[in-house]
């Protein structure tokens, strides 16, 4: 079963999305969050080292999917990935999915035991999923 990492500029947002995702995943899926700067989580920002330790926290051989909010979160996550040992890096994926919807979908599908790429695919599909009822 894959692990999930939630990255946000806000520590509170990252924790909140983590909780929401945990509701969807049950206990089986390892989820960690990395929000705000390392020694000052009140300050908005992202920190590659915080992301790196969040990846290590939920590491498993099935891989880890990293979901980010936006902007420099992506650069920080890229740096974190580059710091992973080669073996792990190949099994760690940065997702293009929107953070909240993506985390919900990814958590649920991870809990169904789906592999990394498949979980990322359904999470990224959330980019185009409308929120409002599709009535005719």
């Amino acid at each position, binding site marked *: 079963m894959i692990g999930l990492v939630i990255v946000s500029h806000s520590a509170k947002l990252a924790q909140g999305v983590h909780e929401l995702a945990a*509701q969807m995943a049950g206990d089986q899926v390892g989820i960690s969050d990395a929000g705000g700067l390392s020694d000052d989580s009140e300050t908005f920002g992202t920190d590659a080292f915080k992301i790196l330790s969040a990846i290590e926290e939920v590491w498993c051989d099935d891989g880890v999917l990293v979901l980010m909010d936006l902007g420099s979160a992506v650069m920080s996550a890229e740096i974190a990935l580059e710091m992973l040992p080669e073996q792990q890096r190949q099994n760690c994926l940065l997702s293009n999915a929107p953070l909240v919807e993506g985390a919900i979908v990814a958590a649920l599908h991870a809990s*169904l035991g789906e592999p990394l790429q498949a979980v990322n695919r*359904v999470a990224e599909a959330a980019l185009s999923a409308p*929120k409002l*009822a599709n*009535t*005719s």
Partner: protein
Amino acid sequence: MENQSSPFSPFEGKIERNEPHQEGGNSSNSHASPPDARSSQLEPPHQLSKSVVVTVSDPRGLHLRSGRDVVRIASQFQAEITASNLSRNSNAVDLKSILQLLQLQARQGHSLQLAATGPDADAAIEALCSLF
């Protein structure tokens, strides 16, 4: 999900059993069939369609967590499973997708039509009915 164990209880269901809608209607062209993964998976003898109308009993409607359980159950079956919200006149959505399911905006008392197509359609509908 309080009543997961009683498969037939809280929905007012009319179950319609449909014969397979198979284009062409015979199997003589099996060698000539196009490389369509779906049609080759659905062997005519096992191809079942089944649909049922359920009423949402949960006072909070179909929400994130109950939706999660629906997706979990639906994902256990091979059948394609869709739902539409008759009370909102909505299009059919894929019940194996939590985001699509939430698009139904299903409140307590809404009627949902669940439809399954595939070899295990019967079992899928039966299992899903227990959740409403």
